[in-house]
């Protein structure tokens, strides 16, 4: 366990070497962002689902992801104030709290997660994939930053598959609008060879990420595929896909997990390892970020381990086979954008969850329904019933929010979780009706 840090104090989270590496990668990235006024580097704000990181990197544009900033604000306890600022400015209490946290952060000086000021965007790359709010979000930001916006409309997989027409539409937008606009903003010509190099690195990292996620098929699982995997998907969902850094990160992460499997260890949590895996759970929906550690502890205290999750697929459903393919650079970017989890229709989401329950030998599944996120939440009660019917395994349903602490009721959620896990325990011991 030499690669792992012991907590200096009882409340300090335990971190693996890969986590420390990720932290350093993020710190360097935000250092670059903070220094753009000196270095002349340019940045593009964009979204996690359907992000075109490789394309941005091929133009030497630094990605900034407002969703990540919002969740980081929540984890740092700042989102409540930011949301309050946005609501005072007229933003409705009914809408996405990521947006309001971002607006509030902007109005408070745009200080990012590392305490440094974020630069204003040189361009807003509106990759409109799987979430209606994205469109409004960047319309709102455009009013604040007065910078160019380029829209990439990604059709919805309404019938559960990608058609040639959809792919053609996305590729045409990339070719005729996104790339010319990125050329203009960056001052660089489109370099397809460079894009291919990035895509090659992406696929390498994706292979290792999938291996890590699928390691949860082991019993006991060496990872937590919801809470823990939030960290694992960080580099690939954000600014690092297509870089050597991401490849190195996932190689190191994979080695750590291989070692955990060899030692028969359970997942790492901020409060130590899970030694006694009692329940194997599939989780649907994003986590709550304001009480992330407390939320996780509610599971780990009861020996509940998430063995698969859908949230960790919002930036790409790699475990279903997709890899970025450097031989068809624009088409592969189109397929990537089209294939993100929230761009899948309800029947496909149900099939995926049912498949996870089977393949990961889970005892049940939990839906964390997020008030803010209608893309995820609308239809989840239908998902609950359908997955229960198909799998024969019980589902639990809890409600919280992304970054608004007003909608995280710890006692209520804990009570529900305890009842749910108690029921699973009774079923296992033959107490099911």
């Amino acid at each position, binding site marked *: 366990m030499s690669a792992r840090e012991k907590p200096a104090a009882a409340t300090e989270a335990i971190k693996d070497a890969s986590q420390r590496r990720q932290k350093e990668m993020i710190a360097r990235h935000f250092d670059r962002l903070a220094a753009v006024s000196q270095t002349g580097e340019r940045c593009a704000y964009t979204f996690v689902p359907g992000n075109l990181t490789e394309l941005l990197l091929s133009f030497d544009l630094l990605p900034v992801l407002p969703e990540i900033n919002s969740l980081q604000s929540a984890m740092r306890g700042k989102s409540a104030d930011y949301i309050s600022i946005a609501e005072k*400015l*007229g*933003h*409705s209490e*009914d*809408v*996405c709290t990521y*947006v309001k946290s971002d607006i509030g952060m902007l109005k408070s000086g745009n200080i990012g997660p590392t305490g440094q000021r974020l630069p204003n965007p040189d361009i807003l790359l*509106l990759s*409109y994939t799987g*979430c*209606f*709010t994205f*469109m*409004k*979000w960047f*319309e*709102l930001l455009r*009013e604040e930053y007065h910078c160019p*916006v380029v*829209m990439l*409309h990604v*059709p*919805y997989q*309404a*019938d559960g598959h990608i058609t040639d*027409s*959809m792919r*053609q*539409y996305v590729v*045409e*937008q990339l070719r*005729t*609008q996104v790339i010319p606009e990125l050329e203009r903003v960056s001052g660089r010509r489109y370099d397809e060879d460079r894009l291919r190099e990035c895509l090659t690195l992406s696929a390498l990292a994706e292979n290792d990420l999938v291996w890590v996620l699928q390691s949860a098929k082991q019993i006991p699982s060496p990872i937590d595929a919801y809470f823990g995997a939030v960290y694992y998907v960080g580099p690939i969902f954000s600014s690092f896909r297509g870089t050597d850094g991401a490849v190195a990160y996932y190689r190191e992460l994979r080695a750590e997990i291989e070692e955990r499997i060899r030692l028969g260890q359970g997942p790492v949590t901020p409060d130590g390892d899970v030694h006694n895996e009692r329940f194997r759970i599939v989780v649907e929906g994003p986590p709550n970020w304001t009480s992330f550690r407390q939320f996780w502890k509610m599971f780990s205290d009861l020996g509940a381990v998430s063995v698969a999750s859908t949230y960790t697929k919002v930036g790409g459903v790699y475990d279903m086979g997709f890899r970025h393919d450097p031989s068809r650079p624009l088409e592969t970017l189109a397929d990537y954008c089209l294939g993100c989890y929230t761009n899948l*229709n*309800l*029947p496909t*989401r*149900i099939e995926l969850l049912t498949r996870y329950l089977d393949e990961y030998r889970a005892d049940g599944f939990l839906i964390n*329904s997020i*008030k803010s996120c*209608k*893309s995820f*939440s*609308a*239809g*989840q*009660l*239908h998902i609950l019933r*359908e997955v229960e019917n198909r799998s024969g395994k019980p589902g639990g349903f809890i*409600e919280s929010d992304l970054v608004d602490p007003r909608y995280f009721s710890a006692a209520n959620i804990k009570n529900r979780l305890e009842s749910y896990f108690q029921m699973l325990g009774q079923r296992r011991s033959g107490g099911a009706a």
Partner: protein
Amino acid sequence: MTGVPPLADLLAGADRVYRDYSLQTVADWKARTGGLAIGYMPIYVPRELLYAQGVLPVGLMGGRDDLEIIKGDAYYQSYICHIPRSTIELGLNGSLDGLDGMLFPAICDVIRNLSGMWSMLFPEKYVRYLDVPQNFEPQVGGAFYLRELLEISRDLETRGARPLVAENLREVIGAYNENRRLVRGLYELRCRQPWKVPTHELYVLLRASLVMPVEESSVMLAKYTSLAEADETRQPLDQARVAVTGSFCEQPPIGLIRTLERAGCYIVDDDFVQIHRYIEHDIPLDGDPMNNLVTAYLRDGVASPTRYIGDGVKGEALLRRVKASGAEGVLFCAPSFCDPALLDQPMLVNAVERAGVSWTAFKYSENGGQFQVIREQAGTFADSIKLWSGK
């Protein structure tokens, strides 16, 4: 002859159609023609394409306060708007059995996800999510949209609709142009003489028009126009002229519209039942009619919150509406939990404030029945305009 004045008779008939959850007009049309009927959700679908293939497009706008939601609520959390609940309720209680399918246009994530639920709840029906493009370049978004429409056309044909023929489509576009002209005419008349066209009447006509063939709707609208215009008992009141915005998908209860009028507002512009005015002008009849249908969407669609405003300025279209209608204030009137309306609202508020236009905002639900608070708010707003605007 019933002895009822013709205008009241016409409105009573329209009201019956509007309130009929069982869609008897659709059943009658199907019995008469043997054609298919396809439902569609707000805000826009190219009805012309359907009707040209002998398919009756049937506009569905959820429920009202007289629809008890029993099953629909079991599908949605408390923080989801109301229209998907009532739509599911109507589907599950058999009201929509006469429809052969449903189109779910790209409005928001809730309606998008409803399309998947619908396909599972009603597997025998045709279900199609209509991904209208947010790219408005003819060679890019236009080409995609054309492919989408052609696929819908083929799907309908497979299900028994007649093949798409250019001449039929051209003729139907003409019929819808006429219908849109009549609707525009009523809106213009309401602008000039709002006392002649109370919005609660206009609204019922627009809703009834959703579930009848376009030709019948046009006859009804033309008749109403001439009767209302000629009605000398309708005299002006000292009311404030307001534009209502935000009600393009889930519809306000008719009681809310009446409340606004009783509170001292003449509604001189709105975005209710927006499909009738989504395409702002006539669609050309010369040239390729499919291409014209596509171009109309790309070039002539209203600045709905569901539509990306690329190089445009947010709120500019609303200000144009305010100016054109002579509205003295804006009522932001959105359904609770409506992402498109509520995310758009801060930008629109900024625009009207920059222009010095008065505004107020409230939310509703389609099944709401208590309007006292809104009445007081709207009444105060109307009073403030009349007393303090200096006009």
